[in-house]
């Protein structure tokens, strides 16, 4: 897994709430047996009209926006457990998702793929979205070591599990850790 320490980037605002993983990556694209190519399909049915033409209104298609930070509405990533959603967002180039609330499974999937979920207050989120809509070239800094997000509307801190933080800072993943605990797991199994 790629390391994450600090990111300075412009950001794309996506105000919708309850963005479920079916929107992030529709089920018809889940037929692949590897992790490649999902980035091209991210938000497919929002990025394109039914007739296949591009939806220029959608923030990801709007040329005024760019960057590897997605700032999205409350309860991001709800619904299906498909990790393909995290692969699609990473594949598209996102490294951070900012929201006021993340669904559990998505949050775990994101962290397991080096995609940092930054949870801020509803108030901060609303202000940030409006600010980005009005100032699309404004940059946002996400500092994992300090657990802070800095933008022109002000700074905020965010929570992250200490273990997960270490994993991200060093690029470790859970498999490495669990394998290192093998003896203990075997001993537990024997008594179970």
């Amino acid at each position, binding site marked *: 897994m790629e390391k994450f320490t600090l990111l300075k980037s412009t950001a794309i605002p996506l105000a919708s709430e309850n963005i479920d993983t*079916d929107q992030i990556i529709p089920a018809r694209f*889940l*037929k692949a047996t590897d992790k490649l190519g999902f980035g091209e399909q991210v938000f497919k049915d929002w990025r394109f009209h039914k007739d296949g033409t591009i939806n220029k209104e959608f923030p990801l298609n709007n040329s005024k926006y760019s960057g590897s930070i997605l700032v999205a509405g409350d309860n991001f990533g709800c619904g299906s457990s498909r990790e393909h959603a995290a692969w699609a967002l990473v594949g598209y180039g996102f490294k951070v998702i900012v929201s006021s609330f993340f669904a559990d499974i998505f949050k775990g999937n994101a962290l397991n793929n080096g995609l940092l979920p930054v949870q801020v207050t509803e108030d901060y989120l609303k202000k940030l979205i409006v600010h980005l809509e009005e100032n699309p070239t404004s940059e946002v800094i996400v500092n994992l070591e300090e657990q802070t997000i800095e933008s022109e509307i002000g700074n905020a801190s965010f929570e992250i599990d200490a273990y997960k933080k270490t994993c991200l800072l060093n690029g470790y993943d859970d498999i490495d850790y669990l394998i290192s605990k093998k003896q203990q797991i075997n001993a537990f199994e024997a008594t179970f």
Partner: protein
Amino acid sequence: MRKTLFDKVWDAHVVDVIENGPQILYIDTHLIHEVTSPQAFEELEKRGIPIARPDKIVATADHNTPTINQHLPIKDALSRNQLEKLTKNCLKNNISLYGLGHENNGIVHVIAPELGITQPGMTMVCGDSHTSTHGAFGTIAFGIGTSQVAQVFASQCLLLEKPKKMRVLVNGELKKGVLPKDVILYIIAKLGTNSGTGYFCEYAGDVFENMSMEGRMTVCNMSIEMGARGGMIAPDQTTFNYIKGKEFAPKGTDFDEKVAKWKTLATDVGAEFDKEYEIDASDIEPMITFGTNPGMGIKISEKIPYKNESSFEKSLTYMDFEKGKSLIDTPINYVFIGSCTNSRIEDFRVAANYIKGKQKAENVTAWLVPGSQRVAKQITEEGLKATFEAAGFTLRQPGCSACLAMNDDKIPSGEYCVSTSNRNFEGRQGQGARTILASPLVAAAAAIEGKIIDVTKVLEPVL
């Protein structure tokens, strides 16, 4: 210390606690399917790690399988490849697979309980968010991502923070025509789609105590739709009776010993929850959704509420519904009875009981998709198939089908579908499809009438 059902099962499975970090939780049973497992197999292979406990894994093909002509080769090359990969991976790693055509094949959350694989007090995971279904047995069961599938493959464990605990109490008597699906749709509409995020939810009270295992599974299945990783119901005599005699259930004295242990799992009197809700059963009515998340539900007799939020309005625009309007008499051309939420024998009994002696509306395309081969067999044996066919319905073969529309079972753009599945997200049942979630009874009535009707007005007193 007084413990909850969730605490008892969780604590018994903790291998270790990392300081200021997650816990290592041991997993008893790992269910896998074709869509969320191939990348996990690949990950282990890449790292040269063997599968720790292939004997604790059960595989089925369900998400991406056709529901007609299952004996023929699958036409779509990608889908065929995905199923072939599953078969190869299972063979190579000595994993039990109930593939297409196998007598035990079906939707992962239908087959594990009916085979007796799901048992109280267990920890179970699957790369599917509706794994919460198995909580109906007093099991800690939850959906995981593919990275976690790989973690369980590698170690039979997961690194997790212990979730918080909530309880939903529903006491009283359910009204005529109110099914378990209505109970859970009501709970989600009342509490909201993220009310359970970070929690495991126990359902308690006499409504659940009096519910069948099929009904309990429907309720626990949709826990994830309020954000809860899992739902649980304390095991009781109904649970033990259901498990007894099932293929993989303990037998003889072994079964009796297990039952004695399972009886100790119920939440201790006075045990504390982080939050608790109480609902009066008599307030629940047949439910229906009008929007694009499962929390956007109303009683079938109610009108769409007034709310001035952009997400709410976007949702109504997608559905082509208006604030203040009733859904009664809305013409519908599609009905889907199936999915891990409502594809068990009881669901088809309810539908057949309503349909008996009536005729399907001509404008309606109805997909009746049993959850498993065993359910399909039982439908025939109980004579329900004959009832459906006499009314102009045809039964399809088992699978997830139009719940997520990965296979060819897609609802056309712009069409309404009254569906017994679990998600009404935009495009869930096909690009542009408009899903209306409901119980098998409401869905059956819509298939007969060709429009949404208030079932409470037409029910025989027996139902």
